[in-house]
């Protein structure tokens, strides 16, 4: 029997499908729904020290090839969100808190507030493509990235810390190395890619923020390449693949490329929450057909010569 359970940086997941940051992980009721839908784990929306309203509409756009969003990291702030998480009772899947900020102090403030039993790990959002100083600027400043990672790690009480990377930076492997050397336990790749959409009749950019992040099928092969590159150099480190995953075949591809687990985001706009169980069934069927007993046996196989 193929086993879907997987342990990523010490976090036990009942299956390798994690809800990606930015999608639904904002209230306790939604998290319960995601758990019931079959997810292996949940990454919360990015939480910042202070509440953020996000940008004005339009903030989200459906394209033929995916989605562009510039939500602007709306969230109720760390203090409020910690109380929201405390409402969860009988909750069994691990929660990974996505943290945003622009200084090490802001990151540690949020990590300290969200250090509650249900939160099994932290994901540093160092790659949001549409909020100034809260994203890719961090990856461009290697010293700042290193400081943020080590300061979050220093307050995380041994909970694993992941860094979410961006394909917008050329040498993503080098950044992964800096993150890991600074104390990160694992890497998540990729965040959305900065993009824009122009309406030809309005003759204007559609998003109020002009720039947003591209997600969905349009970015899948970029994300897959980044996971492959990271696995080449860090085959022993936990790697979580995210970007355009819509079906079980995509999950298998990412695991063969080197991912220990994957995250689902935009696909929920297309297929709804039933996509978790649909994909789980497909992955299981594939594993049984191909004779894999567990996810670990499949991981990184595309690298074998």
């Amino acid at each position, binding site marked *: 029997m193929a086993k879907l359970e997987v342990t990523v940086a010490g976090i036990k997941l009942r299956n390798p499908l994690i809800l990606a940051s930015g999608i639904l992980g*904002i209230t306790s*009721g939604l998290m319960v729904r995601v758990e019931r839908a079959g997810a292996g784990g949940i990454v919360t929306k990015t939480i910042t020290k202070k509440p953020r309203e*996000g940008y004005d509409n339009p903030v*989200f756009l459906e394209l033929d090839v995916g989605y562009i969003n510039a939500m602007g990291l709306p969230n109720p702030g760390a203090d409020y969100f910690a109380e929201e998480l405390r409402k969860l009772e009988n909750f069994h899947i691990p929660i990974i808190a996505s943290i945003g900020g622009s200084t090490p102090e802001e990151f540690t403030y949020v990590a300290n507030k969200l250090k509650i039993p249900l939160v099994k790990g932290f994901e540093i959002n160092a790659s949001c493509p549409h909020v100034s100083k809260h994203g890719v600027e961090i990856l461009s400043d290697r010293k700042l990235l290193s400081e943020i990672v080590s300061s979050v790690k220093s307050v995380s009480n041994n909970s694993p810390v992941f860094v979410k990377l961006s394909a917008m930076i050329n040498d993503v492997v080098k950044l992964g190395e800096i993150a890991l050397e600074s104390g990160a336990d694992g890497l998540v790749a990729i965040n959305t890619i900065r993009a824009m959409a122009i309406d030809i*009749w309005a003759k204007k950019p559609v998003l109020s923020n002009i720039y947003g992040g591209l997600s969905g099928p349009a970015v899948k092969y970029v994300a897959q390449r980044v996971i492959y590159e990271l696995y080449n150099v860090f085959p022993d480190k936990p790697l979580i693949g995210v970007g355009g995953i819509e079906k079980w075949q995509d999950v298998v591809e990412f695991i063969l490329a080197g991912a220990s687990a994957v995250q689902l985001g935009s696909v*929920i706009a297309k297929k709804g929450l039933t996509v978790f169980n649909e994909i789980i069934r497909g992955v299981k069927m594939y594993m049984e057909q191909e004779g894999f007993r567990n996810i670990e046996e499949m991981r990184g196989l595309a690298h074998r010569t």
Partner: protein
Amino acid sequence: MHRLSVVTRVENLAEGIKSYWLALDSDLNAEPGQFIMVWIPGVGEIPIAVAYEENKKLRLVIARRGKTSNYIHENLVKGDRVFIRGPYGNGYIYSNVRRALLVGGGYGASSLLFLASKLVNRGGKATVILGFRNKSKVILVKDFTEIGADVIVCTDDGSYGIKGLASEVAEEIMDDFDAVYTCGPEIMMTKVVHYALSKGRSVQASLERIIKCASGVCGSCVLEPQGLLVCRDGPVFDGEILIKTEDFGRYWLDKTGRRIDISRLKN
């Protein structure tokens, strides 16, 4: 991406409420209760219920509520372009309903107008109770009458129709109907849902919340504790579900995702 539409007609319905007819390139095939996102480039994008759709003609009823709706009221005229995406969400369920009671408040009457026309076209009977603050706010009475619905109008101060609340009038006559539909201020809908369920009538209500993505991913429109998404699971919900929803009639999420008391909303 958005679809292009062109304003073909603007009607002043009442103080602060206008109706816009839009010409489309192709049908949306919207169902009553569904909504679309209306984008005014350089201004903003808002969710608006479909008030009617037929042969590439779309009707919207827009009340002044904020920046974008104010801009629309002050600037949009015949010939102007409007950019829309959708339709989104789940509308009213009305197949096999013979005698329907529709209870609308304020601009909430608009999605019920589309529902009433579908019900009447299918050979059903629609009775509509419309509640308004006063005579200056009364809308769509003629439109409902013209499509063949029976209309009862109530105003809070008695300046038009019956003096009293639409929900109270609805309670009195509810026994004569198979199904109840309501759209309007949530305080009114809460009463209608409770009256209907206590009388064993099926009831559906259409809710309003802050809509950002409209695609069921951002969570801005969630109802707790079930985590129901107004943009995707709704905006129309069955009353049996709503009575288990703490937020129904009580709370909204603000733009940050904090729960605020519904009384703090400006109308």
